[in-house]
């Protein structure tokens, strides 16, 4: 597609439920990032995929968080047993070849855990 697409735009869920967030990167981009941003804060790195390499999961805050990238394209971020502190905007970005190339962001998914 023309840009990075994320869905849903907004998600309200009850504490304890699982949620899945989707990211469609720019076609042909080999690198994909997930970040989250709490209100008024900077971006917090979560996970990075690059081609067929093992993902860099060093930013995932707990084992309730996981992500996969199928076929080198679409990625899904899953949060199990959501907690109120998981409320944030989850941002996905892609770049052509990784950290040395320009990254483009989707519009984000605003997650609210009630």
């Amino acid at each position, binding site marked *: 597609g023309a840009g990075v697409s994320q869905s849903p735009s907004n998600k309200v869920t009850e504490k304890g439920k699982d949620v899945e967030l989707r990211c469609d990167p720019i076609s042909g981009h080999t*690198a994909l*990032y997930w970040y989250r*941003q709490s209100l008024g804060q*900077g*971006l917090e*790195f979560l996970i*990075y995929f*690059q081609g067929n390499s093992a993902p*860099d999961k060093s*930013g995932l805050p707990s084992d309730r968080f996981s992500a996969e990238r199928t076929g080198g394209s679409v990625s899904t971020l899953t949060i199990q047993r959501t907690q109120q502190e998981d409320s944030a*905007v989850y*941002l996905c*970005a892609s770049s052509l070849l*990784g*950290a*040395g*190339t*320009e*990254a*483009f*962001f989707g*519009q*984000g998914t*605003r997650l609210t855990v009630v």
Partner: protein
Amino acid sequence: GIQVEQSPPDLILQEGANSTLRCNFSDSVNNLQWFHQNPWGQLINLFYIPSGTKQNGRLSATTVATERYSLLYISSSQTTDSGVYFCAVGSRAGNNRKLIWGLGTSLAVNP
């Protein structure tokens, strides 16, 4: 790891004024980007500028990689320029593969 510092943290301008935002980084970089996050949260790419100077309309940016800083210039500011400006870098050091972000400069342009 690499550190990224942005200044000033907050800035208030009258419409029409010029400003300079600064990004300092602590190590060699192979990527530096400036983003504008608008009030709706969308991150908009302004410049991909690991070195050199670029201009786009009222905005321009300069990165002096040898001295480890980048500057973003906003001329004739408009209310639509309000938002947070982020600098993000990719480091050459080790196997670092993720962008490192500054804390941003929050800009308010008043009419």
